[in-house]
């Protein structure tokens, strides 16, 4: 191993680590606001990557049918709720966001999909197709269980993960897909050359992290989310709707997942079940941050990426073992250094 190899490995690790960092932060966000350990986070990565790959290939991705389907389920749940309570005022909004929007997207995608589409429009459409699935999944699965224990929510998450993976196999088939690079070319930086695509990945991740920071620090909705994360009951007392916070959180999580997926689609082959492992590595990063701290989660995810890259050079057969073993010393250290507080309300 010489310096140039170490630098290439470091670069590879940082690119992967940046993706894990985004996912790790999304996991921390979801857990802080809704107490859900969001295992299906990785599925949104897959959905994002493969929806984009299908659009680039000139096909209509199966995800366009999933959206109206989920919307219909939400509408059904809301109808039952309205029938029981006799309050019908929220229905027009539900009709617009869960029926009209998905159908509009379905129509637009079917009209638009074909050869020679613009990559950037494809990406925007992918984001529009995948991000609304977050709040819909939240409404269907987690809202009825909002007061359940963390363990119940975790088990439900596993179920959602399996459901979405199965749907992924139906929509995209068993074979992997790749998309062309968004930016081509090489850039010489110091001793090593970066490919345009990997710089684009790292740059986008940085921009997103700064955007998230601004969102939480400067906007009303961001502060409402933070308040819910600190104390759910207190936030409700001052008029922040937990349902709104949950929906918003899941929109962000799904959008982050979809963007991560689109970022990795040109650098690796994505399969219908790839997302799970990527999400899991983000989860290791989030654990390093104690599922509470965003900066530590991001740094931890970077560490996971770099560790993964170097262990693939030294001991490729044990790569995953090394990466996931990282969680043990972290948990031991945390259990010694942190006062145990029971967060169950």
């Amino acid at each position, binding site marked *: 191993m010489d310096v140039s*190899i170490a630098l*290439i*490995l470091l670069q*590879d690790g940082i690119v*992967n680590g940046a993706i894990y960092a985004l996912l790790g932060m999304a996991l921390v966000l979801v857990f802080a606001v809704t107490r859900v350990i969001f295992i299906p986070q990785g599925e949104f990565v897959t959905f994002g990557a493969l929806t984009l790959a299908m659009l680039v290939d000139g096909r209509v991705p199966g995800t366009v049918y999933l959206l109206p389907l989920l919307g219909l389920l939400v509408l059904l749940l809301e109808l039952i709720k309205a029938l029981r309570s006799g309050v019908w005022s929220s229905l027009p909004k539900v009709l617009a966001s869960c029926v009209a929007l998905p159908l509009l997207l379905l129509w637009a995608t079917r009209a638009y999909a074909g050869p020679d589409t613009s990559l950037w429009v494809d990406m925007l459409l992918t984001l529009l197709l995948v991000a609304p699935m977050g709040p819909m999944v939240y409404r269907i699965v987690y809202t009825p269980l909002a007061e359940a224990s963390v363990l119940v929510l975790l088990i439900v998450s596993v179920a959602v993960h399996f459901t979405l993976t*199965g749907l992924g*196999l139906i929509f995209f*088939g*068993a*074979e*992997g*897909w*790749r998309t062309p690079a968004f930016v081509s070319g090489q850039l010489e930086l110091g001793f090593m050359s970066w490919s345009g695509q990997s710089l684009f990945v790292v740059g986008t991740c940085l921009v997103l992290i700064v955007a998230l920071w601004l969102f939480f620090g400067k906007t009303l909705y961001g502060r409402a989310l933070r308040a819910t994360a600190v104390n759910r009951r207190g936030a409700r007392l001052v008029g922040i709707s937990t349902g709104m916070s949950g929906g918003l959180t899941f929109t962000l999580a799904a959008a982050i997942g979809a963007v991560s997926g689109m970022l*990795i689609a040109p*650098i*690796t*082959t994505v*399969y219908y*079940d*790839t997302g799970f*492992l*990527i999400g899991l590595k983000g989860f290791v990063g989030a654990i390093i941050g104690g599922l509470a701290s965003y900066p530590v989660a991001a740094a931890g995810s970077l560490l996971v990426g770099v560790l*993964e*890259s*170097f*262990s*693939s*050079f*030294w001991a*490729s*057969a044990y*790569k*995953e073992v090394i990466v996931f073993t990282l969680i043990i010393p972290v948990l031991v250290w945390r259990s010694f250094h942190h006062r145990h507080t029971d967060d169950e309300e």
Partner: protein
Amino acid sequence: MLKRLSATAAALAFLGLPFAVHAQVKVGVTLSSTGPAASLGIPERNAALLLPKEADGQKIEWIVLDDATDPTAAVRNARKLATDDNVDVLIGTSAVPGSLAMLDVASEFKVPMISVAASAQIVSPMDDKRRWAFKTPQNDALMAGALADAMAKAKVKTLGFIGFSDAYGDSWLNAMQQAGAAKGIKVVATEKYGRTDTSVTGQALKLVSARPDAILIAGAGTPAALPQKELKSRGYAGLIYQTHGAANNDVLRVCGKDCEGMLLPAGPLLVAAQLPDSNPVKKSAMAFVQAYEKANGAGSTNTFGGHVWDAGQLVLAALPTALKTGAKPGTPEFRAAMRDAIENVKNLSASQGMFNMSPTDHSGFDERSRVMVKVEGGKWVYQPDL
């Protein structure tokens, strides 16, 4: 008490009567159409649906189940097929671990089983359990031999190896080391990677720095494209070989121009249309291609589907012999007769080669079941001289 007994006996006789008249042959098929091996299992299931429902006036029922690439589910399926459905032959499953687990079911219920997974361990070393097991895909050793021949012709002396970190990669590493040693080819670097890995940069750098004359990538399906692309982008200029696991059109789609010039051994099915008419396998391979493309669209032929088709051909070839013994389908005697008949299949051309089964060889393929193929202009091109 006596009355009830005789009533039961009468009911049984009544149930048994139509059964004896329409004795139907049942074949139980379990494949991995979901889960990690789905890219094999889906075309295999498509091929299973093409098998004829009737042969020489004998009705055949093919019961196809999915085991989600889970050995436990494969065993559960096999048990259900052998007991509830009372099948005469078992076919399956797509992956090696499940097939090995099914050996116990096959020997316990004494029902012949034809695996469509590749490992030689499924049928060798021959023992009491494996007496009931057959398999249709080519042995790794057979394919590794073809690779070693081609490498020797290209004057390769040192070889780098990168393979799946599972049974597929391990078994190929073993086969390649043995086949290479016979031709004076040394494996100088071995690396492993996972099917769902997003990066193989580390492994590729290490392989390139060992400077081998050629590199063999042992992966199956589209994941085989990842090391190929990485090696090219790291500027590796030597020859790159792949295994027959990469003989799949989706690999070419994902890999694009980075797969140009890659060499691999494959069943003759992959290049059936390019084979000379004198090739004994051409006609039977084209029969599968036509049947498959009629049902699934032009250009959809998949070599994994061929393995299930071949398992079906073995059943069809053995059926007349087994029926001649006078045993009735659905009885233990008929299962045993089917086993003996499959073991005696000789010179049967199927989609992937010629079967010549024997009591010691339950795979039955020879050199006629492999060809060398090169990727030229994004197409598989038959290489008669390699």
